[in-house]
């Protein structure tokens, strides 16, 4: 199938769009303003020698430019987005309505606390429900996102060991299947990372963990485990793991990125967890496409609670105050401040809206439906694909590439072909412990009809691959605005800054 070329470069109603700087019509503007009187130059040597270089454009040109760019976006609002480990669930519009209330949207972090009591109550209420849902003793609300929450948890662990005269504890044990942020966080905190392999059914091998704890003795600071883990499996021996860790004098950090699979169904405190971050932007539905904003409040056990960072919202009498400084009042042993202001306040508003509109029964149903949807996909896709581990899974299912063996088609090719089918590809080549992994997380957002459409496409692709039609896969995507991008060149030789064409530079120099 060859597609006609057009004189405009556009493909039907898919528009080709130059960069805004390349659409410059000097002098064009949205509104006519009176000429600005030229002030006396007081910048001395640092004065500008060239024009600022903003493009001249009319208002409709600007509107079209950004509207067309937005049409190139793929988002959960436009289609199925099964990116495993990312939890791309629907963000209810009620959340957005609440976040735009002037009392929440138009306040300033520096205004007197007495004039922002509603906002303080919201932070305190959000914290209250996070503690109710986890059974933990305290929560640090300020971490900006998941990895920052991990950092907060490990800093609290560090502070607790220091306070207990255990500063020699310099080792953090992390399973190989962990989120990459876990070892990165440990390294950033100055710890040495010791990894432990998964066992054949994709979970932490507790015998290996015990051996590792024995080997490193009183130098182990903590063990970090993601539960459900990145293979989409529940760590059934979580309580035994916690007991072994505590017996070694270490703390148990649980990565709570996958809390969405268990919220409302178990209490984190009952697992023996000392610290866990909660990705509000995953479990509690706040938007996070394009890298943010997230929020990573970190819940803490009684032993770690005294070290939680400032600021802390404190209920006093009828109102609220904020403890801003470590070393005072409730923050006597606080480790200090990790973030400016009060955390990701707009995300708190959305997360609390979600919690309160869902209620306890709704949250429980959400985690149940997320797990049900993933198991439905796992069961139906197993007709042609090869699951990496025996089910049942939790909120995501992972397939390896055994079903592609001998076809000449790779996991990457399947992902690209899915774009032609109108789906955002799932996460690929992660977790690293699964060969050629396809990690699929449907979330509770999707209906059975939506899941069935995805299954139809996936099964059709798997059959095509097995029929020896590798060339079609290697050419994919064929129907997208851009064909397959050169990811290698983009990583090796990225062009990060637009520079004007040489003719423009010459013209600017002449001016």
């Amino acid at each position, binding site marked *: 199938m060859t597609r006609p070329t057009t004189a405009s470069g556009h493909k039907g109603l898919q528009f080709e769009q130059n960069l805004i700087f390349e659409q410059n019509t000097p002098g064009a503007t949205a509104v006519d303003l009176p000429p600005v009187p030229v002030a006396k130059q007081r910048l001395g040597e640092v004065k500008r020698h060239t024009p600022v270089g903003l493009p001249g454009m009319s208002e409709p040109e600007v509107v079209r430019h950004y509207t067309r760019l937005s049409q190139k976006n793929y988002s959960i609002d436009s289609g199925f987005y099964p990116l495993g480990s990312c939890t791309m669930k629907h963000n209810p519009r009620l959340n957005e309505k609440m976040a735009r209330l002037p009392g929440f949207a138009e306040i300033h972090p520096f205004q007197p606390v007495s004039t922002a009591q509603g906002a303080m109550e919201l932070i305190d209420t959000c914290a209250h429900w996070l503690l109710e849902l986890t059974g933990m003793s305290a929560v640090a609300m300020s971490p900006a996102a998941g990895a920052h929450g991990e950092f907060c948890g490990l800093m609290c662990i560090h502070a607790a060991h220091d306070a207990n005269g255990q500063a020699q504890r310099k080792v953090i044990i992390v399973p190989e299947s962990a989120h*990459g942020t876990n070892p990165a966080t440990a390294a950033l905190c100055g710890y040495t990372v010791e990894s432990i392999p998964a066992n054949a059914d994709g979970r932490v091998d507790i015998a290996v963990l015990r051996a590792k704890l024995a080997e490193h003795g009183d130098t182990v600071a903590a063990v970090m485990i993601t539960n459900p883990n990145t293979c989409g499996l529940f760590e059934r021996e979580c309580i035994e793991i916690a007991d072994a860790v505590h017996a070694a004098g270490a703390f148990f950090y649980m990565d709570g990125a996958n809390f969405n699979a268990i919220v409302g169904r178990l209490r984190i405190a009952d697992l023996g967890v000392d610290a866990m971050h909660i990705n509000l932007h995953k479990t509690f539905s706040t938007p996070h496409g394009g890298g943010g904003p997230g929020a990573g409040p970190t819940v803490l056990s009684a032993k770690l609670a005294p070290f939680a960072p400032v600021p802390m919202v404190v209920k006093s009498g009828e109102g609220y105050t904020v403890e801003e400084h470590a070393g005072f009042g409730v923050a006597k042993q606080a480790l200090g401040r990790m973030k400016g202001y009060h955390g990701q306040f707009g995300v708190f508003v959305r997360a609390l809206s979600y919690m309160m509109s869902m209620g306890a029964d709704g949250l429980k149903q959400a985690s149940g439906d997320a797990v049900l949807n993933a198991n439905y996909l796992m069961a139906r896709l197993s007709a042609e694909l090869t699951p990496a581990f025996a089910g049942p899974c939790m909120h995501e299912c992972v397939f390896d590439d055994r079903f592609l063996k001998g076809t000449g088609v790779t996991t*990457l090719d399947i992902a690209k072909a899915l774009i032609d089918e109108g789906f955002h590809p799932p996460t*690929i*080549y*992660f977790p*690293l412990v699964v060969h050629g992994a396809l990690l699929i997380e449907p979330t509770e957002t999707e209906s059975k009809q939506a899941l069935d459409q995805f299954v139809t496409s996936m099964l059709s692709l798997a059959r095509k691959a097995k029929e020896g039609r590798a060339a079609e896969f290697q050419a994919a995507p064929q129907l997208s605005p851009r064909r397959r991008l050169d*990811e*290698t060149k983009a*990583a*090796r030789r990225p062009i990060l800054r637009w520079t004007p064409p040489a003719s423009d530079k010459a013209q600017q120099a002449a001016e």
Partner: protein
Amino acid sequence: MSLHFTKDHEWISVDGKVGTVGITQYAQAQLGDIVFVEVPAGGKALKAGGEAAVVESVKAASEVYSPVSGTVKEGNAALPDAPQIVNEDPQGAGWFFKIELADAGELSGLMDEAAYAKYLAELSA
């Protein structure tokens, strides 16, 4: 000169007391196009099985482990600017670092070429 392999797909070629370490043809093929390499600096002490270098491809970031204990003599300075050398010639110009062996006896715990070939055959079985 002797050539040895690890289960993590590193190779070490030993000449006297100095070994040259890299990743195998199989490892580079599994990783795909390599986009970033970090090699250890000369003088760094390494333990057998300890992290020695980092390799990142379009698919994954991985550690490269030292097959033996010893002191790094030099890292391959060409790799950070031209990581594709590892794809093109993993068991030649794409070497990662040279190491002065602390204990040549550690080599006996590694695989020779025939044993590694057998190990790969088992992996893809």
